[in-house]
């Protein structure tokens, strides 16, 4: 008797397909049976593409039968975050302003999925325009954490993380501007990787903050993460920041030895009151596991990513810097939603300025408006130097801290999130508290380096806890090898949330 689909890694699904043990149709049918059974409880998807996926599966079965060369992702179901354009399939960014928008083209990463013979099964929920850390900012639905349905899945790629955690998809794509892949992956107990800035083309990714945005993979294992990264990383001239470096063999890199590596422990991250006790304990255990694998730990300093605690209130230069830069960039990027070429247009009559203002006032949700306002203010005459320029200078200081760290260590070892998943509604009315949930993930984006979130334990309430590793520019191979070595020696990633019985 073959193993149930949900117990197979993406790599094993592909291999079963290529060995003709399972047809693509049977894989996709079983995947949709699981997806539909759990979607009511989890709410991970905005669009389910069953018809398209089954047609695609049949085409792949014929292609294999014809003896054609098959792609790296042959027969693997993949979920795609709804800010990544899919030709002919609604792409909303979880925003009313893009309700009904059907892109006339595929994003580069979607083209890559298709070229590698993956099967796209649906578009996942997210915080509107990727602005948020809980997926509560979606205009359309609530996504629940599969481990505790009273809690948020993290965000903004909360739908992708929840889908992978609930075994509704073995692989998913997300995007990460300040932690939007790593934080939900961590809170849902799956692996999430933010590639180096420039590693993956953003052509067809709806822009939020262009100097920070990056697309990346979510999966249950480091191996599957490597497989998906390898598929989406090839060069694309349509994003001028996309590198022309060769794509390394990330899957092969998994086996690179990690014994003898040095991990840096930023003292600024491990401070009293900055980290939930159970999170701190899980990280300490993970550290011992790495030491047993021959990794040396060394104290380092990232002074400009420092976390301060005053009267129980957290604050950080990196968070302050990020919320000026990302909102400034967003205020410019989101100027295109004007009700002319696509998306929502107000029914109210008036002149063109009135039409723009009403369209945008009606179409954008509260957090998006707040960020457009903040960014516009930061860029406005008289404030530019005080906010935008200063934030750019602090960004340089944050990056320089990492440059110094790389002289002493190979990777940086850090938390992903200060606490396990918080409750739905807990931070919904306090934007600042919500922004601080990204306190450990933001520096990686500001510095343009790569980072990975790996499950490393559970809280006493049964909520996933994760560790984060950050690496130099283009050092995804080492991140993946380190994550893989850890997963070989632990089984956190093998646990599944109990969702049966609704």
């Amino acid at each position: 008797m073959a193993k149930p689909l949900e117990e197979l890694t993406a790599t094993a699904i592909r291999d079963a397909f290529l060995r003709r043990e399972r047809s693509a149709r049977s894989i996709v049918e079983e995947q949709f049976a699981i997806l539909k059974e759990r979607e009511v409880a989890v709410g991970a998807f905005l669009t389910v593409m069953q018809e398209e996926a089954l047609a695609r599966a049949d085409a792949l079965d014929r292609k294999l039968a014809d003896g054609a060369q098959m792609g790296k992702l042959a027969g693997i179901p993949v979920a795609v975050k709804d800010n990544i354009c899919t030709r002919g399939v609604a792409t909303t960014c979880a925003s009313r302003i893009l309700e009904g928008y059907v892109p006339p083209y595929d994003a580069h990463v979607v083209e890559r999925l298709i070229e590698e013979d993956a099967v796209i099964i649906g578009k996942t929920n997210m915080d509107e325009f990727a602005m948020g850390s809980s997926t509560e900012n979606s205009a359309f639905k609530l996504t629940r954490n599969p481990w505790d349905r009273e809690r948020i899945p993290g965000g903004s790629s909360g739908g992708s993380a929840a889908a992978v955690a609930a075994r509704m998809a073995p692989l998913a794509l997300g995007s990460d501007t300040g932690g939007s892949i790593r934080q939900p992956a961590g809170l849902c107990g799956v692996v999430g990787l933010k590639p180096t800035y420039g590693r993956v083309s953003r052509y067809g990714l709806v822009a939020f903050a262009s100097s920070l945005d990056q697309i990346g993979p979510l999966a249950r294992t480091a191996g599957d993460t490597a497989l998906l990264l390898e598929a989406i990383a090839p060069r694309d001239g349509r994003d001028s920041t996309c590198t022309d470096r060769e794509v390394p063999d990330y899957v092969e890199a998994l086996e690179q030895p990690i014994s003898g590596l040095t991990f840096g422990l930023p003292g600024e991250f491990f401070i009293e009151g900055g980290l939930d006790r159970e999170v701190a304990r899980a990280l300490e255990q993970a550290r011992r596991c790495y030491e047993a694998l021959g990794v040396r730990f060394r104290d380092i300093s990232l002074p400009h990513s420092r976390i301060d605690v005053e009267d129980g209130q957290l604050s950080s230069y990196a968070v302050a810097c990020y919320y000026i830069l990302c909102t400034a960039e967003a205020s410019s990027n989101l100027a295109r939603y004007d009700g002319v070429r696509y998306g929502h247009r107000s029914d109210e009559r008036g002149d063109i300025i009135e039409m723009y203002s009403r369209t945008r006032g009606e179409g954008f949700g509260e957090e998006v408006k707040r960020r457009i306002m903040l960014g516009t203010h930061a860029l406005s005459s008289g404030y530019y130097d005080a906010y935008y320029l200063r934030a750019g200078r602090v960004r340089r200081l944050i990056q320089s801290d990492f440059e110094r760290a790389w002289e002493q260590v190979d990777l940086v070892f850090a938390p992903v999130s200060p606490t396990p998943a918080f409750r739905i509604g807990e931070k919904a009315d306090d934007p600042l508290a919500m922004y601080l949930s990204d306190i450990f993930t933001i520096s990686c984006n500001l510095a343009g380096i790569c980072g990975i979130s790996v499950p490393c334990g559970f809280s006493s309430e049964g909520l996933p806890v994760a560790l984060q590793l950050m690496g130099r520019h283009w050092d995804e191979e080492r991140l993946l090898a380190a994550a893989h070595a850890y997963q070989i020696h632990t089984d956190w990633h093998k646990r599944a949330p109990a969702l049966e019985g609704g």
Partner: protein
Amino acid sequence: MPITREQVEYVAHLSRLKLSEEEKDRFARQLDAILQAVEKLNELDTDGVEPLVHVAPRRNVFREDAAGESLPREEALRNAPEQSEGCFKVPRIIE
């Protein structure tokens, strides 16, 4: 620098966002709190630090000056809220 309601209205105008009265009050309060948190950056001495705008190496990216394929007109217009005679239709701009 506390944010006044007048400033919120000015920024909303620059942002082309029509806000309700209740939103204006709320945003004034919230933007004030966020900007106060951002004041933390003033603790740092940033004199002489070159602002970091792009983490990728700054270089010109060239391509062949060759005509590519454009989106067919019907496809480009398919998502338009209003269209007329093969164009996007907007309210009157010139009186």
